[in-house]
């Protein structure tokens, strides 16, 4: 036991700077209530996503589908009433949508979809944006010119419109001929949305990272690194990138929310996930004929838009707050202030 304790003490001593920085980061987070809120919201959503099978156990067919992401329909409601949305009750805590899809189940499982869409799109566009941006910014010249004009072209078209066009235009499967064998990549409807969002999203990252690199490239410490015998690759990875990545990380965190919004918009327009898929935008879209109830009480069917809307709203808010918190915490030029 004492041996273990001395080992632990030694380890602590060796890792002193790391521990110190970690402690500082934690106090930094504690000091800002907004970042705590953002973090709390996201922790809540992560818990929802992880616990989805417990919180909303999949319903066996015929009411449910084998795929847990397909929202179950309540077939116990008489067929005449089934097209109408039903207010929250003991069986349906959040009520039902048109066609009697269970809103509670959809909202819970929709969390996983939201994370999947947001994170995958962001990670993919970040990778593409980083690689192209670093190359354009560091080497400049003709490479820079070609890349930048291409990004200009993509940015010139309104994002949502381009997304819609791409979702419609993308084929359901790609066949790549490798000569000896054929590689078939099937794209589900959700994959198409992801791909379209990535294709529309990466140019803005490229531009931001390029601008940052142009700025950092001229700094003395880059020249100093070169004078100390560093190779181009090393200068890029070790000296330029760590100094220019923070804006893009913050942007990515803010964008995760925005991506979810765009995906919801696409779903609402009927271009997103297949009908009945657990997706917040889809859930609102399912009962779009009932959002406006009647003249005497326009918001009588409040649950059909308010509940999924609240999910989207808080999810996006959480990411935005976290984005601001990231800036305060991660950026070494700001964190000591």
């Amino acid at each position, binding site marked *: 036991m004492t041996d273990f304790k001395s080992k632990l003490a030694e380890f602590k001593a060796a890792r002193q*700077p790391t521990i110190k920085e970690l402690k500082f980061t934690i106090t930094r987070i504690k000091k800002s209530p907004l970042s705590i809120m953002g973090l709390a919201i996201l922790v809540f959503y992560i818990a929802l996503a992880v616990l989805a099978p417990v919180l909303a156990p999949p319903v066996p067919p015929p009411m449910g589908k084998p795929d847990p992401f397909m929202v179950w329909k309540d077939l116990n409601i008489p067929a005449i009433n089934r097209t109408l949305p039903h207010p929250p009750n003991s069986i349906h805590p959040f009520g039902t949508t048109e066609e009697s899809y269970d809103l509670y189940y959809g909202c819970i499982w929709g969390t996983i979809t939201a994370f999947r869409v947001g994170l995958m799109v962001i990670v993919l566009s970040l990778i593409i944006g980083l690689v192209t941006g670093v190359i354009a910014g560091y080497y*400049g010249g003709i490479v820079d010119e070609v890349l930048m004009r291409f990004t200009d072209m993509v940015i010139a078209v309104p994002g949502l419109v381009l997304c819609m066009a791409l979702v419609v235009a993308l084929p359901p499967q790609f066949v790549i001929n490798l000569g000896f064998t054929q590689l078939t990549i099937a794209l589900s409807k959700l994959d198409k949305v992801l791909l379209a969002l990535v294709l529309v999203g990466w140019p803005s990252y490229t531009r931001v990272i390029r601008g940052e690199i142009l700025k950092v490239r001229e700094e*003395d*410490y880059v020249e100093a690194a070169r004078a*100390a015998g560093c190779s181009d690759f090393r200068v890029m990875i070790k*000296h330029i990138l760590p100094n220019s990545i923070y804006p893009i990380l913050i942007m990515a965190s803010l964008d995760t929310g925005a991506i979810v919004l765009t995906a919801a918009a696409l779903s609402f327009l009927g271009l997103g996930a297949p009908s009945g898929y657990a997706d917040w935008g889809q859930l609102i879209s399912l009962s779009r004929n009932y959002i406006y109830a009647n003249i005497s009480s326009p918001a009588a069917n409040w649950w059909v838009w308010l509940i999924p809307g609240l999910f989207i709203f808080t999810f996006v808010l959480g990411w935005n707050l976290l984005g601001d918190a990231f800036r305060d915490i991660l950026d070494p030029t700001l964190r*000591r202030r």
Partner: protein
Amino acid sequence: MGNLVEVQDLVLRFYTYEGVVKALEGINLQIKEEETLGVVGETGCGKTMTGLSILGITPPPGKIEGGKVFFKSKYGKTVNLLAQNERVLRKIRGSDISMIFQEPGAALNPVYTVENQIAEALLHHRRRELLEKVLAQIEKNGIEKKIYKKMLENPKSLTIKVFRKIPIIGRQSRLKKEIRKEVVNILREMEIGDPERVADMYPHELSGGMQQRVVIAMALACNPTLLIADEPTTSLDMTVQAQILDLIRRLKKTFRSSVLYITHDMGVIAELCDRVAVMYAGHICEVAEVKELFKNPAHPYTKALLESIPRPGEEFKSISGMVPNLINPPLGCRFHPRCPFAKPICAEEMPKIKEVKPEQFVACHLY
């Protein structure tokens, strides 16, 4: 003593929208072993560019159009740096020649601690030596020894690089400890009071003087034979400046290296240098021993520079006229429009540099 560096007819031009900037036009310089050569001149006369060219660095859109830079490396071979490829140059940079920059705050990467910055130079150029030290410490003939032996055999292999990135397995605690020891030693050498604490600090937590000490530590980490100091004390206040100059002088003796000291401060030159080269608009006008230069300046520009040093109780003198535009420099001697002794020939023909007295070289038609 032989020449460590010999610059011959170096021509550097910048191709910009406005035209071709003739930044360096036929620079000839020699730096002897273990000497301090001062390069003095106005802002924009090409002092820094001379320094960078010796390192083989030309910031875009610059282009070296001609000339040779011979350098005697640690192993006794003399090479023309301008004819070498990047690979060879990278080995020379940092280990044979290193540079100190003007703004210590800007020359340090803000995201790394002092230890990390110095460790980078150490790992880059002295990994083998450090690994040997580590290997000597291990007594047991176990896996650990095997790993370090493998690393010594091929210090730059990819598998080791990948392995090092894996936490816990790749902790390399012994190598890290060794590097830490070395870093603290170097920092102590730089007269930093509390090297253990400073090693863990980020650049912006240090004062200007401390930052410059760290920069010098980085530059000297690999015992270079030539240290290029580009106005290292310009942004520091007088007391710190004196300390840093003392430090450079002392380190130069202990490391037996040559120093190319770039400055516009005549006082620093007088304090530190053995020989001085005076530059004006991309040309060398005079090279002389420091005492000789201050006693008997030969070139009119040197005279004017020395006269313009502010002295208490006297009226401040400045050189009349403007620094020429290097896109369209004046024909002939570039100083002739501002020169009080100008003759007709000065506007027509470029004066060649000649030895007017032993060890005093001047480029002027008066001699």
